[in-house]
């Protein structure tokens, strides 16, 4: 008998109010996952608009598209939005949706905590954005924060940041930070306690492993930010002196606390991206992942070493030569497990039969781009080189290469790969390829050439620049690239919407894949599995499809 499947459209007999109510009070991991993803997509568009205005202002020297005050708010909000209200929610969304399905269980360990975490995160974002409405009021009483996404002290002190803009930043992120910790606790408990019988830690999909390490990192990385924000709020509201340099406080202490969060945070963002690549590349190469145990070990190594590199963001602060050398070597060392992963992905494709469907196209671009991003990271890790390149557009180019060229590309891959599972429909392959090529061109126009002004001395966070320094043409090219990316992103969203309503039925397993989520219907029933599966290898569906040659004989 056919199981009742949940679809996104309201069923004919159900009034819209009931559907909305279902979604608002849901504790189902699949619905919450989709809520996270949709929330993040909205902020992706908003953050993209902020970036576009920034790039238009920088298109030519001495431009007057926006005032310096507006520009400073825009780059602050762009960075804060993209990290906290796009990247983190969207990755948590995919984790929420996929993990229970991939480990063979019915929901996350704490479904109500899951809902609470989502709504906290959502509220945090709304609180941050409320700052825009605060308006110019009484001498800066409210408006969007303009202190940069890392909010260095003492610029954030009440002396230099009048009104409440900084408070919106602090409190919005504090609130969503609690949501992130809640989700991390949930992911940890789910993966450790709810795996289906037979799925030992050594047999679970790499996506589960990478999210496990990510969750552990979130617990230990978001907390320092939370602590620092509490301290900043005590300074601003109760006259405390944590970062009050006039009272003997230390501006550098804020930097240490912030970057102890800030650096592991980028691994929190990139490990789930690696997870997507590790699931998608094998399926489209028709081979199991090369070196599963080494991939796990490398992930754990990144988790640990990632906490030892933070002050490479502070090479110019005046630390002594021993500290600078220490952070140089730890940063270089973390390139090793990261590089190993790239080699293992190549090893996976080696000897395979690669099908260039949209998810795989995005993953292949990811491999090339992440290679470059890692290499510019090595350049930045050499402290003296960083004394020139730090705080310049070279750094901006580097981290956008990682976040857009690495993380966003694998996110697009993940969208196309799991969209059939989530919606029950196939996406349109032609539109997908258009999206890919347009975005690829736009990405490279903007971020390849952005390295050059950095090498030529252009610092970051400037609303305009002097003509004749050799920066003009490159800035123009960067801005042109933005328009390709805008068109591509709109095409992406349009194509998903079109496919949702008009795509052909996907069936359970359109990719002939091997992990448990493909054994459920598309979309899955609310309870995921009629019977909790029992597994014997890392590719349970391969074992079922190839009973003469199952994986558990060879692993």
């Amino acid at each position, binding site marked *: 008998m056919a199981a009742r499947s949940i679809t996104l459209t309201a069923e004919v007999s159900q009034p819209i109010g009931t559907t909305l109510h279902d979604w608002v009070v849901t504790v189902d991991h699949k619905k919450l996952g989709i809520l996270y993803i949709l929330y993040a997509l909205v902020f992706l568009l908003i953050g993209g608009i902020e970036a576009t205005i920034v790039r238009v202002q920088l298109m030519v020297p001495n431009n007057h598209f926006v*005032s310096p005050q507006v520009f400073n708010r825009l780059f602050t909000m762009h960075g804060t939005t993209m990290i906290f209200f796009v990247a983190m929610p969207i990755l948590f969304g995919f984790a929420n949706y996929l993990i229970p399905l991939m480990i063979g269980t019915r929901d996350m360990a704490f479904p109500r905590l899951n809902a609470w975490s989502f709504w906290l995160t959502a509220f945090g974002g709304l609180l941050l954005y409320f700052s825009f409405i605060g308006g110019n009021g009484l001498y800066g009483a409210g408006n969007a924060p303009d202190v940069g996404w890392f909010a260095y002290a003492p610029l954030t002190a009440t002396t230099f940041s009048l009104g409440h803009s900084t408070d919106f930043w602090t409190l919005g992120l504090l609130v969503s930070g609690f949501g992130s910790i809640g989700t991390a606790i949930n992911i940890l408990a789910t993966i450790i306690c709810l795996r289906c019988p037979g799925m030992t830690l050594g047999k679970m999909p790499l996506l589960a492993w990478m999210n496990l390490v990510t969750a552990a990192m979130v617990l230990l990385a978001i907390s320092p930010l939370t602590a620092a924000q509490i301290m900043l709020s005590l300074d601003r509201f109760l006259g405390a002196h944590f970062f009050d340099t006039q009272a003997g406080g230390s501006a550098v202490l804020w930097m240490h606390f912030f970057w102890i969060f800030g650096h592991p945070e980028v691994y929190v963002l990139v490990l789930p991206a690696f997870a997507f690549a590790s699931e998608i590349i094998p399926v489209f*190469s028709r081979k199991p992942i090369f070196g599963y145990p080494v991939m796990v070990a490398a992930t754990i190594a990144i988790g640990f070493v990632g906490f030892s590199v933070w002050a490479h963001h502070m090479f110019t602060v005046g630390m002594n030569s021993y500290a600078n050398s220490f952070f140089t070597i730890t940063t270089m060392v973390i390139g*090793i497990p990261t590089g190993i992963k790239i080699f293992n992905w190549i090893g996976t494709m080696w*000897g395979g*039969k*690669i099908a260039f469907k949209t998810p795989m196209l995005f993953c292949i671009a990811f491999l090339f781009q992440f290679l470059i991003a890692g290499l510019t990271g090595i350049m930045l890790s*050499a402290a003296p*080189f960083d*004394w020139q390149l730090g705080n310049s557009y070279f750094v901006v180019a580097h981290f956008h290469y990682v976040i857009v060229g690495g993380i966003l590309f694998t996110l697009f891959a993940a969208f196309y790969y799991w969209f059939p599972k989530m919606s029950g429909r196939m996406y349109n392959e032609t539109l997908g390829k258009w999206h890919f090529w347009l975005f690829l061109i736009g990405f490279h126009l903007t971020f390849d050439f952005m390295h050059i002004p950095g090498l030529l001395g252009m610092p970051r966070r400037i609303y305009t620049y002097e003509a004749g320094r050799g920066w003009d043409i490159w800035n123009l090219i960067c801005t042109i690239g933005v328009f390709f990316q805008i068109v591509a992103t709109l095409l992406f969203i349009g194509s998903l919407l079109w496919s949702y309503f008009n795509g052909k039925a996907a069936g359970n397993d359109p990719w002939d894949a091997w992990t448990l989520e493909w054994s459920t219907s598309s979309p899955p029933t609310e309870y995921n599995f009629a019977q909790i599966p029992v597994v014997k290898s890392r590719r349970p569906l391969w074992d079922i499809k190839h009973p003469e040659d199952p*994986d558990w004989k060879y692993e």
Partner: protein
Amino acid sequence: MMAGCLLAVQPAFGNLPDPSQMPNMFRPASTHANSIVQLSIFVLIITALIFVVVFSLLTYSIVKFRKRADDDGREPAPVYGSNQVELAWTVIPGLIVLVLFFATARVIHAIQGARKPAGAIEVIAIGHQFWWEFRYPSLGVVTANELHVPSSDPSHPTPTFITLLSADTDHSFWIPRLAGKTDLIPNRVNHMWIDPNETGIFVGQCAQYCGTQHAKMLLRVYVDAPDQFKQWVQGQTKPAHLTNEVIEGRRIFETTACINCHAVSGTVADGHFGPDLTHLMSRDTIASGAAPNTTENLRLWIQDPDAIKPGSLMPAMKLNERDLDAVTTYLETLR
């Protein structure tokens, strides 16, 4: 490839930038900047090699192992891993890291451990929102925004050692052709040094976001030949030039809020919040490089600073036209 671009940058349109005005780190003019370039080129070569190897492997694999049109539909042989291969691509990167690290550590220690020779010039740089204060304690010079230093001859070095302080928020001193950047942080003392080996003007700007007008906290370093530098110092240590023709302008200056922020040595003006104006006319630019130092700009700056640098902390003085002209004329005598 990028280094090549930079050593011969020719933009496709617009004014050809004067190469000496380009803050291009790959045209170093001091030992400090030069040692960074040497290290950078070494790092670039190694990363370029890694790039070529991995790029080739990637390209080869997607071309050679693509699914052909005449595919028989059979699954390829599953290969789960290989310990030897894993070892190889762990050990080799490890060795590369060691080599890179030792090369880097050498340069870190060379730059940060440099000793101050006897002939060194000492400067204290104090960062403000949004201008630079420069003091030469042993020479008795106080100036702003445009730093003059002597060129340094390796046989008889006269580098400039700069102590970096801040009066308010974080800033960063960055002249790419002369040195890597070092931050100015309140309640903290930082140090850096430069030993320029050619004369000329070197441009840079504040490189740590410090507020609304971070973008226009520009920096100019004038490297003078040693006797030129001596002349400059002499000019700077004289008290303010006083003439009777500008009595009216000087009176207005000294009886309005100007003196709360600005100093003119030898007069009652002794404010420290804004730049010292004693030798204002010896500078090529005003508002920390935001505008050339002309009569028009000076006048505009006093009347409406937001027209030049919106959000800077200089208030509009709201003088009438006559007073404005008088004050401007007075300031123009401060050579």
